[in-house]
């Protein structure tokens, strides 16, 4: 049994009695095993998205027995890590009535919320906190970044389906029912902000401690402004002040890491890392605009952020449902138009298969890499849960009965991998609840339409 020593950061600050006191990281996230001093790495959870569903025959294994040895064509690139993957058929998505004309505005926005937007206020963002943000609320305080949101495309697509707000089209993360979390699309800025302006990963440009204190004064000063504002405005202001506070906290956390690094240098063994752990991976930002290279560097950043425990939750919107094309595959037809093949047009079906494989290849690139990085007694992937999936089952029918998804990683031993469960019964909410439970997040209420945790997933 793992002894969970997660402590809320705020509790720690209160106990220390001073706002500047810095809690020691090792008491907070990296749990100790019951027996002795051995350190157990934390579980990290990542999501990667592709829109418009898949061709069933290309994606699902034919039999549970054949899963490992003769995987379906779309999964070819996952072959080296299939024993560390889990597939389950039978997870249904959220029924989208009354928004029947909005299959694409809802495939991404319901993906991690498992619920529909509020119908009367559909022209605003009003949905529910998403699973990744629930986890960020729980463990985000333990890392310098509560959560990481990445996307391949800018999230500015404009199209009104059923009068729904445009943001539903391109956002999967919701910090609160009314706040969509935008994703970062520029790998250079992710690298700079995560790891400082240096191409040497893990090396951080020291933050200015004065900045932290200055921000503290600015937040204090905003109190007077707050009083002069009507209630609606106060909410807006609070959202901003919360984000400034987050920056303050992040600077504090970087300062602490530096202290720890200094100790390490002086010969005090870090409590967190094993001597045998792989060094942080290197990031190379590609020059051209090849989609595969671009997606791979975003995947690398995700790996690096998990490897260095900069964050424990991530989402990567590999593409959004807005007519993306893949010139690299030798055709420019937009993804969406090809999915309407009516199961007859073989040319289109071939292109859909190629696009799906392309997306899974990038995901496979990421999880294969994670499986080669040593961490603790195993690999980085052993301590992660990386889910790839789509919010539609079949783009030609807009159906949502068997959502396609793949889970890679053992979640620190919480997930029993190497299996294909072909007759699962559950829905998107059940799946998300189970994933969070496997990641060690206590669930105090159902997520969306979820009603239960699925014990068949667990190890």
């Amino acid at each position, binding site marked *: 049994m793992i002894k969970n020593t997660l402590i809320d950061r705020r509790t720690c600050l209160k106990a220390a009695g001073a706002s500047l006191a810095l809690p020691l990281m090792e008491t907070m996230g990296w749990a100790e095993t019951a027996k002795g001093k051995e350190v157990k790495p934390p579980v990290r959870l990542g999501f990667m998205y592709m829109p418009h569903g898949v061709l069933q025959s290309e994606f699902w294994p034919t039999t549970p027995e054949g899963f490992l040895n003769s995987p379906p064509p779309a999964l070819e690139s996952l072959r080296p890590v299939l024993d560390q993957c889990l597939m389950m058929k039978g997870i249904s998505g959220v029924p989208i009535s009354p928004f029947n004309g909005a299959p694409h505005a809802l495939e991404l926005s319901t993906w991690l919320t498992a619920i529909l937007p509020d119908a009367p206020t559909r022209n605003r963002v009003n949905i529910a906190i998403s699973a990744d943000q629930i986890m960020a609320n729980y463990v985000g305080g333990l890392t310098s970044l509560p959560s990481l949101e990445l996307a391949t495309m800018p999230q500015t697509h*404009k199209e009104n389906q059923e009068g729904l707000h445009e943001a539903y089209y391109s956002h999967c993360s919701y910090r609160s029912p009314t706040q969509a979390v935008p994703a970062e699309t520029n790998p250079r800025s992710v690298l700079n*902000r995560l790891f400082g302006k240096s191409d040497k990963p893990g090396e951080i440009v020291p933050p200015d401690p004065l900045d932290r204190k200055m*921000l503290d004064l600015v937040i204090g000063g905003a109190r*007077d402004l707050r009083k002069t504002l009507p209630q609606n405005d106060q909410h807006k202001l609070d959202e901003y002040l919360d984000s400034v506070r987050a920056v303050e906290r992040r600077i504090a956390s970087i300062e602490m890491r530096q202290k720890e690094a200094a100790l390490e240098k002086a010969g005090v063994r870090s409590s967190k890392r094993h001597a045998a752990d792989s060094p942080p991976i290197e990031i190379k930002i590609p020059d051209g605009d090849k989609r595969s290279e671009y997606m791979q560097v975003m995947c690398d950043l995700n790996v690096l952020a998990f490897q260095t425990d900069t964050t424990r939750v991530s989402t990567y919107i590999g593409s959004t449902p807005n007519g993306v094309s893949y010139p690299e595959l030798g055709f420019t037809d937009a993804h969406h138009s090809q999915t309407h093949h009516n199961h007859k047009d073989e040319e289109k079906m071939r292109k859909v298969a190629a696009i799906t494989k392309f997306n899974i290849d990038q995901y496979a690139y990421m999880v294969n890499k994670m499986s080669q990085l040593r961490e603790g007694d195993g690999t980085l992937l052993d301590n992660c849960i990386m889910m790839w999936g789509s919010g539609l089952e079949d783009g030609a029918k807009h159906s949502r009965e068997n959502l396609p998804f793949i889970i890679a990683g053992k979640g620190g031993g919480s997930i029993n991998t190497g299996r294909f469960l072909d007759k699962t019964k559950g829905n998107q909410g059940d799946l998300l609840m189970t994933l969070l439970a496997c990641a060690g997040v206590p669930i105090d209420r159902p997520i969306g339409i979820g009603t239960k945790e699925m014990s068949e997933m667990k190890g």
Partner: protein
Amino acid sequence: MTYFRKIRPALLVAITAALGLLQPVSGQDDDPEFAALQADAQKSFKEGVGPFVKKYCTQCHGSKRKKSGLNFDAALKNPGNPVYRKHWKQAVASVKAFDMPPDDEDAIPTDGEREQFLEWIAKIKFLSTKDPGPFVIRRLTKVEYGNTLEDLFGVDPKLTADLPDEVFGQGYLNNLSSLQSELFLEIASEVVAQPEVQKMLSREKPAKGADLREEAKKFARSLARKSFRRPVSDADVEVLLQVFDLARKNELDYPGALGLMTKAVLVSPQFLFITPAKEVASDKKIVPLDDFQLASRLSYLMWSTVPDPELMKLAESGKLHEPAVLKSQVQRMIADPRSRALFDGFGAQWLGLNELETKTFDPDKFPQMTSEMRAAMYDEARLFFESIMRENKSVVSFIESDYTFLNGTLAALYGMEKEVSGSEMRRVSLKDRNRGGVLGMPAILAATSFPNRTSPVIRGVWVLEQILGEEVPPAPANVPPLEKQDQKTVANMTLRQRTELHLSNPTCANCHKVLDPIGFGLENFDAIGRWRDQDDTGGAIDAAGELPGGKTFETPRELKAIIAERESELARNLTEKLLAYALCRPLEGYDEIVVDHLMETIAKDDYRMQTVISEIVTSYPFTQRRIKN
């Protein structure tokens, strides 16, 4: 029409101002005229709309079934509530298009009943209470933030490039992820590190023996005033002085301490948000914007940047809110080159050009779509928009015009490469009247196409929604799009013939008989806006069509003429879209009455663009705000 064109601009100002004064003040709570309209609306609602909806709609769209999320039982109880505006809009669109009730329903209204219903429902707006809407503080957009930094400190506006692009739409969204929230601090640090700012800080040299804290206080006051765009409170200054003390305690030199103060200003919500100058009396529900807020609202609308000294002076003297003053400021601001911001912020969004830069085109089929070409396309639309605005032309010129702006790259698409060469954009007269106006403009034609072919449907929807302001009902679920047609039967058909299959299905026909002809009328323009006589299949383009009302056309030129005749619809649509942009919110119930009044003045002035803008800027919802629900 021609009469007005001869009037000199100065005289025009006088006329517009006079018209402004003549504008009826109806809509007031104590206004008998408005009260009468309201009573009439209530009556026609009770006797007309209610029974119609109960008879034909609520069976599927009521408390029991709520198809498409529409519950008219709830809307009927409180028809004036802005929440239900979308319900009514959708009802109008569907009833008008004979889309609803569905043909297989037992009870189908007669044409007369439909007309009567539409007439009644038009009065619903009078059921709303007078309300300017809230003016919720909002963070400056990426563009506004960059421009503001440039105007205040002379730094490169591209320093904000890493911020995410905003999602514009009915409600405008500018949240930040935790990773991005750090950007504000990072950008502030970069601004302070710029040589321009360092130079400015090192010029601050207090006399020997001077009280440094007092000097810093003066600096803080002046910087905060400029940056917060309003008078500074003692509390504002006090916070900055605390930052100064913090810097000094940490042994920063004087310019260094001023630098930290500057950084503090740049991450303050007072800088990043447009905030009121002072607290307002809390007993009121609706109050006018104070002149400083108005200056910022106006400046960020017209220029996407901080108000200039003239606007600040007018705000200080308390005169800015006077309609005549506002109108003359609008004219001054339009004449200033910074008003291109109105195109970049609004025009490009209205015309759908925001994604043109990154949109994929088939590189084999359209090797012309280089970044130079895309930039030239965008600039053509921008310069054209600006010319209509600066030269105060009628908004009808957006549809019909005898000039455009080209450079050598773009001229190739027009087949005018002999007349125009070089990279610089210039004004060019057009002899071919199929061109001229946004419907024949490559940027728009390309933005409304697929990567490898045109889409008459997208173009048709675009014209109806963006140009004429009509609500196009969404395609019913489970209807196969063009791609899904049986490939053998359609193999030898032109795109038009294939698209016309819509008309063979009654569900599709109702809407497509309106949309498709417009798209067909533009089929002579290929997916990047070149003229062609044959489509991809080699079949001859047939651009002829008929619009509702029996108006027929044979060419894009004739199609444009038919659309240009609908000048009041064109102008109303543009006014509504620009008003929503100016208010940063979707229009709701009472706004419709506001627009009715604006349209009276705008029509009298021949739908001129400057009048559209100044009417919006002096309108009730732009100058007032609701502070309590």
